[in-house]
């Protein structure tokens, strides 16, 4: 709760601050029984690939395989893994693979780290690593491709031969390689050093050394450190504090100080808190209500905040967030991999 405004000699109120208090008002008036519209969400995800003629569809072609991962994860967590046809899913994923082992975002697209990671995650969820061996280029080749993207001097990972570097790619590499059992192909220690260099004065992590702390980047750094078994490098108290401050009056979480709340941060922030064992440092009930209010209960899907257009990205992370919040009826999600815990148990045996 904010200190009483009338007693503060404030800087002219930021327009965003005013909006927050309006939002608080609207939450008070919400019905208590806000439910998760499971079947609507399932239908929404299933309908996604039939919107091929929509303008936005081809503009987001560079995200196609990633989109499939988001949709499939959401379905698995909703308890409907069969809602997307398994055989076609595997066929599609494998059709995106290149000779070098990497996967492009869609058939004919050049290989990239992000789509490769999504591909591995999808295949893990539908239990199709065998198909990767027999019909695809095989796990070893995928591992080779990912490993080739590491800069052995700095430990960082590029997204593709173009060289864009981002801690997202580092996390992606660790994620996919550990699922394939090939983490030893890369220099883990150097990568860990790089993450440590991205730690900021406020306790958070940025995209590269010196860059502003950002919830998304924090997730990638913390998750990568978790996979590498180096959580000891995290200043848990400072980071936890910074993360807890992401929750604003409406109950939602933002990505950085003084920014708008957004459902996808329900995942990035919450899973980071889970990894350092501090989820009780935010108000779970308020967050749950915020996510549920951002649903489209008629047509399905979740948006970034109440009233906005839905998309599969926010649907995935909204549901993953609810799973972390122990919302009833959802499959437990693994906070490091953003995949069902059952999949991780099957693949990694833990």
């Amino acid at each position, binding site marked *: 709760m904010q200190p009483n405004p009338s007693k503060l000699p404030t800087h002219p109120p930021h327009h965003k601050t005013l909006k927050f208090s309006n939002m608080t008002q609207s939450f008070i008036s919400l019905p208590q029984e806000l439910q998760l519209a499971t079947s609507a969400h399932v239908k929404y995800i299933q309908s996604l690939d039939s919107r091929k003629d929509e303008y936005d569809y081809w503009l987001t072609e560079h995200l196609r395989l990633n989109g499939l991962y988001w949709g499939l994860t959401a379905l698995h967590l909703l308890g409907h893994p069969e809602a997307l046809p398994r055989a*076609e899913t595997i066929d599609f994923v494998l059709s995106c693979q290149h000779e070098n082992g990497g996967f492009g975002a869609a058939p004919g697209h050049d290989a990239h780290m992000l789509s490769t990671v999504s591909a591995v995650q999808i295949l893990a969820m539908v239990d199709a690593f065998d198909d990767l061996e027999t019909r695809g280029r095989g796990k070893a080749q995928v591992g080779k491709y990912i490993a080739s993207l590491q800069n052995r001097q700095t430990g960082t990972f590029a997204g593709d031969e173009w060289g864009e570097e981002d801690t997202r790619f580092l996390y992606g590499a660790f994620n996919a390689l550990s699922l394939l059992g090939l983490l030893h192909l890369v220099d883990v220690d150097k990568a860990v050093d790089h993450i440590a260099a991205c730690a900021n004065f406020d306790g958070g992590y940025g995209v590269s050394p010196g860059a502003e702390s950002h919830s998304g980047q924090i997730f990638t750094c913390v998750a990568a450190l978790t996979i590498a078994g180096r959580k000891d490098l995290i200043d*848990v108290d400072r980071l936890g504090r910074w993360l807890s401050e992401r929750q604003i009056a409406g109950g939602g979480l933002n990505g950085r100080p003084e920014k708008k709340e957004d459902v996808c941060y329900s995942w990035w922030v919450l899973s980071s808190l889970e990894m350092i064992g501090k989820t009780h440092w935010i108000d779970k009930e308020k967050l749950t209500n915020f996510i549920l209010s951002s649903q489209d209960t008629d047509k399905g899907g979740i948006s970034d905040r109440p009233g906005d257009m839905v998309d599969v990205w926010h649907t995935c992370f909204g549901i993953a967030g609810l799973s972390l919040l122990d919302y009833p009826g959802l499959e437990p999600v693994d906070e490091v991999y953003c995949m069902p815990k059952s999949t991780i148990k099957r693949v990694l045996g833990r």
Partner: protein
Amino acid sequence: MRHWLLTSFVTLFVSFCNPMTANQCVQQGPRSALRPHHFPLSNHLITMPPKGKAATKPKATETPATTTSNPTTTNTTRQTASQPSEPTTVLERSQQRYEKTRPFEAARQQKGLSKLFKEDQKGWICDQLLHLTNRLPAASRSSLLGPKASKEIWWTVNGTNSIVRGLKHKPEPYTTWGTDRNGHDVGSYTIERFDERFRKRIALTALQVSSRVFRENVEREKRGFVDARSGREIIVTEREIDEEKVRRSKMAVLKKDLYGAITGRLAESVEWEDVVPIPHEEPEGALAAITYPAEYAEAMSYLRAVMTTKEYSPRCLRLTEHIIAMNPAHYTVWLYRAANIFALGISIPDEIEWLNEVALANLKNYQIWHHRHLLVEHYYPTISSDPEALAQFAKQERDFLIAILSEDTKNYHVWSYRSWLVGKLGMWEDEEELKSIEKMIDEDVRNNSAWSHRFVLVFSNPKYATPGKAATEKDEKVPQELVDREVKYAQSKAFLAPQNQSPWNYMRGVLVKGGQPLASVQGFGEEFVNKLGEGEEEEEVKSTHALDLLAEIYAEKKDNEKADLCLRRLAEKWDKIRGGYWEWRRKCLTQSETEKAPGEQVEEAEEGSAAV
């Protein structure tokens, strides 16, 4: 088949003839002395006896001595008596023409052959015979009908004024002329419209012929052919290229008009003549197939082609620009553009100028900033030894960054780039940079990005900072004056918006850097809190961060009671949403003897809701 048909018609015809004639018809009679080629209609089986001349050995009982008597013309059942109305469409016109060549056909269809008058029946049969035998080779023609039969047929044909050469196929809607670009039957066009279409087709053909000549010349030029007459090498002149461009656009217009065919801009262009585009192959029934807009699909197919051949040229550069305009998030096209820029030695400042426009139009795009990063990496070695050039470039960059940040003050990509640029160009001592950041904070004290950038600017300055030192580590080399200055700055800004977390985080970070204890700012913190714990009405808390800070300071000083009060009031009233955190802090107080140092792993999360 024809032969059979012919003989059956002959039989039918024979039955109409005089028995004697009939007899002779089926025999192979002696051939007429007159050969077919003597007469204008010479390629017919039946030799037509010349009008008005002496008949050649007529065997038929009824001699067609003159053609004047025409017994059948008076026959009122003749179909061709009634004049048809003027045709409005080409289909009607052709149909009328067709019917004219088959004058008895309409009647026969209407009434049936048996119901027609005898003369009409005969007339119909003759027509059929004519049309069937029209195109037979000479040898078969002469063997099928004897001269008597021929004469009989000709006499009838002459009498009925049939048309010897008829239209072979009945005109049908849709099939005869096809459809136009809207799917309408061209046969339904009016005569004028049809003629116009015909003229356009001729025009298109003419253009295509000229275009082919041009393309052949281009090919010849490439191979170094020499013109046979002049002895000079063939060159394609600028004028010819311009003419071809005009021609191509005319062809595209005509094709679209006539057939609805859209010629892609690139396929039409002279510039891309020699490139074979590689279309996108999508597997049948793919799970997430995409329908691309035609222009984008075309451009991508050309991109694939030139990327395969690794061509770096001005036209490729233009192509990347074209694609980026349609889909700036396509990472491959940026990669290829960068390769072109470097291969062609394009001026980096020029490219950056272009990039600025794209950046302003696509604020959320990652690729643009990585591209810029690559450009600067490439450009830097050329100016690194020239301080003036460096300063100039730094200024240009800053000016643009300020402009784009005014559109989106917290754009993460822009700020990350800016922080990187400081290190790359060594801008730590640049007063303008610091001033610019201060201005942004003045405009919006809540801009966390600006605060973050300030930290980088101040504390990674190699003049006094230890290189490679982590942001979270104390650095002895940092001068005390600097630490004091930064703490003061943060504090001054905290007063402007006490609940804004940025200056509080900043201040803490500075204290850590300078190795200064938190307690040194206790007084500052206490300015934001008044009468804590003295009752709901009395209590004044202007900033929860102040309370947080004070709690920590009191705990460090082992004043647990005061610390607990702060934390309790935060959990109870001032920051209820983070109740779980404050409660945990309170617990830590009671465990203060065994409290773990920061950085070590903490035990399992405490259960319990955050709501107090």
